[in-house]
């Protein structure tokens, strides 16, 4: 790591005002990764400045590649050697950039610590959890006796809510679930009562119910230690109720900064506005189409001279492309004339900007946006998505697309090498009932491991299920001949989760989209015409067809995947988490596309997702799954407005809403523990072990939950139904 520090003798001006030094002060931080083998250099961070005071929470928001993680890793001294870092990072006023590894190591984990994104790979697999925790203590104080370090580790485990810490001390990381490992990571960060904790997407890899637990824990950790927290995330919901101030990053630079309310209720930067408009909202009844931001983030190796967002910005002017706007208070941006004048002078370098705590925006039209009070809907062209008119509005009148009855998928657990014997069963899918009508979207939601994907694979297999039946368009799949099955596949296609790995990298886009057509013996001249039709339909350029998937961004690849799925004109599209791997601004475009396609072609969707906000936006009906069973099913409006199953209630309550005011006022139901193993589900009601309602019931009622498995019974009228003995029902429904 080569580091060039700004020689700063000046005490930061903001420090004098507030009368105390910020705990962490980053000034004009720049990070460049040297390119190897004639690859160009990548400038990941280009001038980031912020300050965090004791007890303050700063959120850094940005999409992937915006430089938000790299900037904090640079502050921690964790970047690889080929990174060139310039600027200044001060910890309690002391410059820490450029310190050698040994000196820096003494600060890491003691004064400044970090929680990372992926808890599954964050712990060394070969040491016990307790030893790794104790190591955090002993590294900073070599004189601590082993027994004392061990005591402290157990104390920490208890503090972060690991049950039975004495015993769990000796566990290895692989014996812990993801949520528990993240708790250990947080315990490690708290071990020496640091002054700053940097959290790098601490909940992104976790399920919503676990996310709620971890956020709760981080709040507690902050109360406990009084530390300043830097919360890095792409999820605008997570930060809304958690942080005091927000820094929005785009292409390695901060583009807007201010208090959380200023950003959420009065953003003055088109990018932030677009980002907020692109988030599907779980709390809004009729949101309308999402705000899509066209295009993709720029490549960091070859940035345009002007504002990096200008190519995607709907209100960009020629001046935007002349010079990169500086982060200035609203209304202080230079006029268009000044920009034209200065851009003609050669070698104009952006000035170094310090965080003064004031709200600032890097957009030359911010003053205009402010005075006109524009919102995202005003500046972004929002597509108008029509409703498909072809079907009867009465659900019962429409034809069946898919009907699943009592579907099960059990995997045997085998043991032994030569003589295998069955030692148990994984109840992956355990009795599902649902149907999808023409032109309808049914969403299957639930935490990971609840059996969503197994259900999809069972349905897509078109084989005779282990028990129950699957009917596609009124035909029972168990009675199909091989030829019938092949023909039926035309009507039912799938879009996969990961657009990066689900397209063959050695086939051109044309070949990928043409393959299903060729397989089903469509004549060659029809194929070419159809491929161009499809490319146009999903919003790609016709010139793209000769390229390979690697040349496309995630959103474009997902469009290719959708075009491939639509090639055979299916009537039912199975979507397996189609947007979960995409950035928010890209995700909005794909969701809009799916809605447009449904309106245009009258498709039915089976939509699998874990993101309940996306589901509320797109689905007509929702089925909530828990441990291989549906616990609640019904139309989207009823489920979101009047959830009657305790699990649905908890799930909905766990999702953070991108609205600071609402978020601060909400009480989250935080479920205990993790999903039980599907090999050994609890007796009676499967949810009772984590149920918030179970604890409030009388012993007699609890017995009913423990012994009798609840069946789905209608609640709240309509077609909403919940599998709970004590579901919240409206009067007169029982």
């Amino acid at each position, binding site marked *: 790591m080569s580091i060039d520090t700004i020689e700063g003798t000046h005490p930061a001006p903001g420090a004098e005002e507030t009368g105390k030094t910020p705990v962490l002060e980053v000034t004009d931080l720049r990070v460049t990764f040297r390119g*190897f083998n004639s690859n160009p250099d990548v400038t990941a961070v280009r001038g980031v400045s912020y300050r965090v005071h004791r007890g303050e929470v700063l959120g850094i928001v940005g999409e992937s590649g915006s430089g938000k993680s790299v900037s904090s890793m640079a502050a*921690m001294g*964790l970047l*690889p050697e080929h990174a060139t870092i310039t600027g200044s990072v001060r910890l309690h006023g002391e410059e820490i950039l450029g310190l050698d*590894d*040994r000196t820096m*190591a*003494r*600060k*890491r*984990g*003691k004064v400044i*610590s*970090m929680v*990372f994104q*992926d808890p599954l*790979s*964050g*712990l*060394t*697999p*070969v*040491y*016990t959890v307790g030893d790794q925790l104790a*190591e*955090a203590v002993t*590294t*900073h104080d070599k004189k601590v006796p082993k027994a004392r370090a061990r005591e402290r580790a157990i104390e920490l485990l208890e503090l972060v809510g690991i049950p039975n810490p004495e015993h769990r001390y000796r566990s*290895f990381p*692989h014996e812990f679930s993801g949520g528990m490992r993240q708790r250990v*990571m947080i315990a*490690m*960060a708290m*071990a*020496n009562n640091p002054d700053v904790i940097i959290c790098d997407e601490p909940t992104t890899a976790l399920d919503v119910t676990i996310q709620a637990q971890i956020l709760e824990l981080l709040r507690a950790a902050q109360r406990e230690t009084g530390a300043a927290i830097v919360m890095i995330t792409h999820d605008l919901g997570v930060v809304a109720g958690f942080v005091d101030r927000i820094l929005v990053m785009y292409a390695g630079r901060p583009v807007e900064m201010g208090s959380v309310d200023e950003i959420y209720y009065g953003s003055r930067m088109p990018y932030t506005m677009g980002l907020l408009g692109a988030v599907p909202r779980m709390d809004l009844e009729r949101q309308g189409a999402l705000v899509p931001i066209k295009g993709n983030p720029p490549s960091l190796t070859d940035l345009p001279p002007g504002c990096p967002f200008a190519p995607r910005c709907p209100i960009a002017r020629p001046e935007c492309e002349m010079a990169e706007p500086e982060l200035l208070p609203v209304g202080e941006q230079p006029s268009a004339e000044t920009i034209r004048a200065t851009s003609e002078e050669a070698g104009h370098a952006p000035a170094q900007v310090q965080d003064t705590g004031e709200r600032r925006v890097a957009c030359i039209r911010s003053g205009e946006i402010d005075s006109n009070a524009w919102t995202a809907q005003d500046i972004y062209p929002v597509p108008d998505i029509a409703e498909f008119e072809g079907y009867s509005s009465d659900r019962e009148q429409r034809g069946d697309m898919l009907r699943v009855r009592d579907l099960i998928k059990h995997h045997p657990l085998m043991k032994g090498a030569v003589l295998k014997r069955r030692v148990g069963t994984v109840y992956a899918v355990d009795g599902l009932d649902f149907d999808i009508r023409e032109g309808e979207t049914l969403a299957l939601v639930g935490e990971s491991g609840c059996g969503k994907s197994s259900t999809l694979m069972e349905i897509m297999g078109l084989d005779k299920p282990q028990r129950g039946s699957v009917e596609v368009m009124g035909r029972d799949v168990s009675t199909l001949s091989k030829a019938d099955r092949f023909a039926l596949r035309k009507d039912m296609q799938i879009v996969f989760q990961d657009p990066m790995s689900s397209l063959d990298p050695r086939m051109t886009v044309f070949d990928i989209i043409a393959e299903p057509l060729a397989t089903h013996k469509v004549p060659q001249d029809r194929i070419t015409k159809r491929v161009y039709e499809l490319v146009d339909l999903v919003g790609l350029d016709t010139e793209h067809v000769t390229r390979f998937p690697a040349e496309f961004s995630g959103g474009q690849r997902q469009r290719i995947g959708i075009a491939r799925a639509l090639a055979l004109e299916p009537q039912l599209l199975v979507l397996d988490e189609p947007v979960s791997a995409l950035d928010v601004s890209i995700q909005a475009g794909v969701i809009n596309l799916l809605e447009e396609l449904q309106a245009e072609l009258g498709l039915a969707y089976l939509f699998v997702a874990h993101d309940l906000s996306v589901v509320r936006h797109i689905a007509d009906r929702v089925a909530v799954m828990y441990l291989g069973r549906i616990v609640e099913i019904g139309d989207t409006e009823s489920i979101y407005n009047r959830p009657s199953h305790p699990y649905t209630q908890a799930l909905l309550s766990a999702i953070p809403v991108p609205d600071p005011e609402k978020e601060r006022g909400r009480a989250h139901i935080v479920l205990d523990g993790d999903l039980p193993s599907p090999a050994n589900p609890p007796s009676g009601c499967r949810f009772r072990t984590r149920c918030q309602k179970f604890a409030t019931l009388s012993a007699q009622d609890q017995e009913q939950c423990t012994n009798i498995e609840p069946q789905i019974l209608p609640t709240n009228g309509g077609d909403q139904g919940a599998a709970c003995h004590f579901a919240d029902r409206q009067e007169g429904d029982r």
Partner: protein
Amino acid sequence: MGKFLARRLLNYVVLIFLATSFAYVLAATNLSPRDYFEQMQPPPEPALVDAQLDKLNLNDQTPLAQRYVTWMSGVFTGDFGQTIQGGSVSDQMMMKAGVTLRLIVVATLLGSVMGIAIGAYAAIRQYRAFDKAATGASFFVLSIPTVVIAIVIQVAAVAVNDMLGIQFFRYSGEYTAGFEGDWWEMLVNRVYHAILPTLVLALALFATFARYQRNMMLDVLGSDFVRTAMAKGLTRRKALFKHALRTAMIPTITYFTFTFGMLVSGATFTEKIYAWQGMGAWLIDSIARQDVHVVTAVSCFMAVTIMVASLLSDILYAWLDPRVRV
């Protein structure tokens, strides 16, 4: 864990038995002890030859199954039969096995430790001078068969000795014939003789291990847990040594078993070239002498050493990786 090892051990015993049986059948059907006697000058009486063959349990007129059973029942009591010259195979095997084991064990330790250390360090210095040198050296060694390395080193040793004018390197035999002295003088003398052949074997092993360890280390270098270790206050060096290296050694240990077979065959040539009276040299000599029992006994010995190596790597694996300890 104990149960797992016991099961493994049982598997290995069965495998050794099978390997030895196959070796016996192969040797007994392909070698011809009768020719050995008939070619003697002056040619002995046919009846005498038969009598001798019967005595040694090598007569091709006796059914193979019968010879096999006779021999195998001896093996179970620790008797590997007689050499074609009439000596006890077991007695000689003890002596020669010691020689080979000494060579193999020292070379293995030296080669693997050197390989792991150099490979791991090369990974840390990826694309730097050290990495390039280490990569170049290991590919160079890997592309040459052990036989050639052995001879080249021997030739080089002769050249160096000639230049120095003294017998600095010893390249023949285990110790100087007729050397008399205190026990420590004997020891120094033996070590002197052992340097070159051990080096030859260690070199080949070093090359494979260095390559393998470098790749494994590269895999874990960028991993999240190394970053976590640094984030909690370990220096880079300490994080790499304590967290990365230990994890990166797990796959290398499994690989150890596979390389061991190669090492044993490499030892065969090296012993022959450096005139060591070990198992390898004995095997080559006894093939020329049509000596069925020795060939089989050596095969059995090799099977045992490879299985012991496997068992060792099983134990090491379980020690390094808690996930396999059930």
